[in-house]
């Protein structure tokens, strides 16, 4: 199983640990973080696959910066859909990936750093579903030109 899939499974495991009792906040917060990192590692690993020297791909994947990835994803998430109906499915999936990334990143930041926020299972299930949907959407479009452009732009390259 790929690392990003392991992270999603780990998020699900954590979110269900105390059932049917009340969840412990630490488990919910770590689940949100794992869901975000599932998508983060999927995208950075996919980008690294394009690097010619396989021995350098793990180092390449570490070049990505959360803030630059957010800036790029926010732009993609708010792009209007193309007029050409043939391009709409790929554009819609790409928007879903980018939008989910932005939402998950904010949730992860809150979960990791904000002790004043109380999480519920529904909130966490929703975040896990966002990550699962993003991963499924990515698998449909990963070979498309716009998806490959997105991977490059996530590094903060010039438009």
């Amino acid at each position, binding site marked *: 199983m790929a690392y990003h899939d392991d992270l999603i499974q780990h998020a699900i495991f954590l979110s269900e640990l105390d059932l049917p009792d*009340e969840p412990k906040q630490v488990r919910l917060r770590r689940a949100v973080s794992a869901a975000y990192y599932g998508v983060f590692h999927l995208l950075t690993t996919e980008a690294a696959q394009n690097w010619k020297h396989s021995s350098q791909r793990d180092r390449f994947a570490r070049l990505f910066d959360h*803030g630059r990835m*957010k800036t790029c994803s*926010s732009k993609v*998430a*708010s792009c209007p859909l193309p007029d050409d109906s043939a391009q709409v499915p790929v554009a819609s999936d790409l928007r879903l990936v980018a939008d989910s990334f*932005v*939402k998950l*990143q*904010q*949730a992860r*930041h*809150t979960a990791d*750093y904000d002790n004043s926020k*109380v999480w*519920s*299972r*529904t*909130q966490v*299930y*929703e975040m896990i*579903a966002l990550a699962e*949907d993003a991963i499924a959407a990515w698998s449909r479009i990963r070979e498309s030109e716009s998806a490959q452009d997105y991977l490059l732009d996530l590094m903060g390259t010039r438009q």
Partner: protein
Amino acid sequence: MILPRAVAQPAELVEHLNALAPFPSGVANLRYTVDNDWSGDPAIFFWITLSDDAARRAVLSQNSRRIMDVITQRLDPVGQWGLIPYFNFRSQSEQAKLRDEVFG
């Protein structure tokens, strides 16, 4: 720095947010806060309490996606107001126990 319309014209934003009612089915309560997100970008956070039926895990994703789409299409937070939208969902029974002020 360009001021987001939501900050420059807060009364208009409130007017448009009030016009979101009646809320999509499954929504028991909807509140919002305008704040910066973790990286300092202006954002609107929606705090949405769902009926327990709409928050069932089997239908949660479908319902939340529908509600997010309706709000995003009606309000256009990024295009019209310069705000990145973030959504938080909770069930009525969870909120009854947690009594989180932000969810109302």
